[in-house]
């Protein structure tokens, strides 16, 4: 199963992954049009800095995901085909239990739609947008088995 890995030493904090993520989740997928969309497209990855290092934080798609266990509506679920933790926003009631339990802070509130917002690992793309968007290849996709 493929997973997204981070090579921290390569992250320069350019936040291109954020922009790429928002773009791939926009209607137009074009930066010059996306900034005019309402509601504005949201990104699911956040680059933060600790000391001298940058951390592109996104959902880890835990095997034992606490957000799934905490979800009261059944929206948060394991997509067994691709091994991702997915949120069916149509079922989400906005109780924020997932926000409460995610130890990575990777589930946020979609303020406009009042549903949980998290990485979907770009199911319709060959490669997640953040990976494709990373100019230093700090984010990369690899087979899980190769790294563990």
């Amino acid at each position: 199963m493929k997973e997204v890995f981070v090579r921290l030493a390569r992250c320069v904090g350019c936040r291109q992954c954020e922009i790429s993520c928002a773009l791939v989740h926009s209607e137009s997928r074009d930066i010059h049009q996306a900034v005019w969309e309402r509601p504005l497209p949201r990104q699911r990855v956040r680059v933060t800095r600790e000391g001298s290092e940058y951390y592109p934080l996104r959902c880890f798609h835990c095997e034992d995901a606490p957000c799934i266990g905490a979800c009261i509506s059944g929206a948060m679920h394991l997509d067994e085909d691709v091994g991702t933790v997915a949120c069916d926003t149509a079922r989400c009631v906005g109780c924020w239990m997932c926000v409460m339990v995610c130890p990575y802070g990777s589930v946020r509130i979609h303020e406009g739609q009042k549903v949980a917002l998290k990485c979907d690992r770009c199911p319709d793309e060959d490669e997640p947008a953040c990976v494709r968007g990373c100019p230093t290849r700090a984010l990369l996709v690899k087979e899980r088995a190769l790294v563990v």
Partner: protein
Amino acid sequence: MGRLEGRTVDPAALEMLKHADEQGLETAWDRCRAQEPLCGFGNLGVCCRICLQGPCRIDPFGEGATRGICGAQDYSIVARNLIRSIAGGTAAHSDHGRHVALTLLAHLDGHAPDYRIADPAKAEAVARRIGLDPAGKTPQEITREVTLAALRDFSRLEEEPCTWVTSTVTPGMTEKFEECAIMPSNINGAIAEVMHRSTMGVDADPINLIFGGLKSALADYAGCHLSTDLTDILFGTPRPVRSYANLGVIDPEKVNITVHGHIPLLSEIVVDVAREMEDEARAAGAAGINVVGICCTANEVLMRKGIPLATNFIAQELAIMTGAVDAIIVDLQCIMPALKTLCECFHTRLITTIPFSKIPGAYHVDFREERAKESARRIVKLAIEAYRERDPAKVHVPQVKNEVVAGFSLETMLEIFASVNQEKPIRALVDAIEEGEIRGIALFAGCTNTKARHDEGHLTIARELAKNDVFIVATGCAAGALAKAGYMRPGAVKEFAGPGLSRFLERLGRASGFDGGLPLAFHMGSCVDNSRAVDLAVLIAKEMGSDVADIPFVATAPEAMHEKAVSIGAWAVTLGFPTHVGVIPPVYGSSLVTEVVTKIAEDVFGGYFILETDPLKAAQKLIEALNYRNWRRKYSRASLDEAMVAE
């Protein structure tokens, strides 16, 4: 569409791209891919690197920072970046002009014997226009006065307007610029002011900033115009010439010297010297010397000397890849540093010539006006020397070239118009507009850019406009695109022009006895020569009793790339042209600035930006802009007549 087909519509460029692909040679298109995805912040103009606290970025999606460390909002940041870009363009154009002026002055002082006053009549005409009395003065004296006046536009300390602005636009436009406090008095000062007001902690008001940018843009316009004027005096005002364009002009049998850049001070001399050194080339086994051009240096020597145009900006590397270019002489602007690495794969000598425009590893022959011919000879010698090292196995020249009729300075065009209206030549064009025979005029300008499919925007829009009876003039790399594709040969009129335009051009061609007929698109010169198009527009406006903002005259830069394109675009809008740009400039990060440049500008200046990446849609919008102005002119005149009848 294949990967390479998606990069260009120019068959010669495509052939070379395939060749490059096979040979593993890197091009700008490959490097463009390596740059993807482009930085979203930079792309939207919301990255501020002006002070050392940052770099600051505004989150375009509204979740992160909404202001810079200093508190600057998106609109201040976008506006500051934009006007710095305008200042960059202004610096480039005006410094180019200043260089020509200094060369003229050196010649007049006897330090540049290899030059001459090639067009005393132009000197006289410019002198009259700027209010000098040429009576009883020698051409040298007139030229000196004109040149010093031009240099005063760079150095004036009084708050008086730049001569090259006030003397070239309508009184109404001058008044508007004064009223908006954007009239420059000193080109260098306008640039400095932009740099100052956009530095940390000065101007944060986006409208104020943009007006500062427009002042610089008008300074750019002055720089362009005086550059055209002085270059015409120095090397002659272009007259109709016939030549060829596209990579097929590179002759494998000859020593090929490519001139590239913008300022023809040395290239003109190289052309002359090459003709004198044919024997040396033959001695080296070549059939002779063939000088070809790239970018605006190409346009300059094509317009005045009929030197063939090899290709335009983005394809510059492809010329080297033919393996038959023995030397490429570059001056300044739009020269890719990548040429050096590429030349290393061949025998080609890359020769820089300007002290402040060098490339590591290239030959540098310092251009000095006092020994121009000597420098030119050294360069031609280097080329012949290189020819001996040429590897015939690496030669690959696409057999693609098109006939070009060029040399359409305003003077030339008025001569042609005079064939139908001796008394008032410009009436020929104005009548055609007023009678609806032609819909209006479009200026094709600007660069080529990897963001667009090479030349596609230029050609598509030209076809659409021609079909809709729009009279086309072109400059710079846009002109290069049209030339390469054959839109500047007479036959193109039959192929693309709508009925009205076709009738108009055929009538003009017949009346003027223009050999073989007129081209579809009129080549007016290099990018500084956009000033010629403004002269045409101002002439029309004056004839129609209005300002440029009222006449059906649009501009388009479908593949803009350089800061110079930003400054030209800015002054085009300020002068009143609806101006299409086919590459989104970094302004979308601020809705306010975008609104200002695309909408509000029209209320103030009549001109505005049309930002549209789809060439077909862009053509439609340009046609709508022309239609609107025609309608408005007719409507206001009709209502005026009615009112008078009522009285």
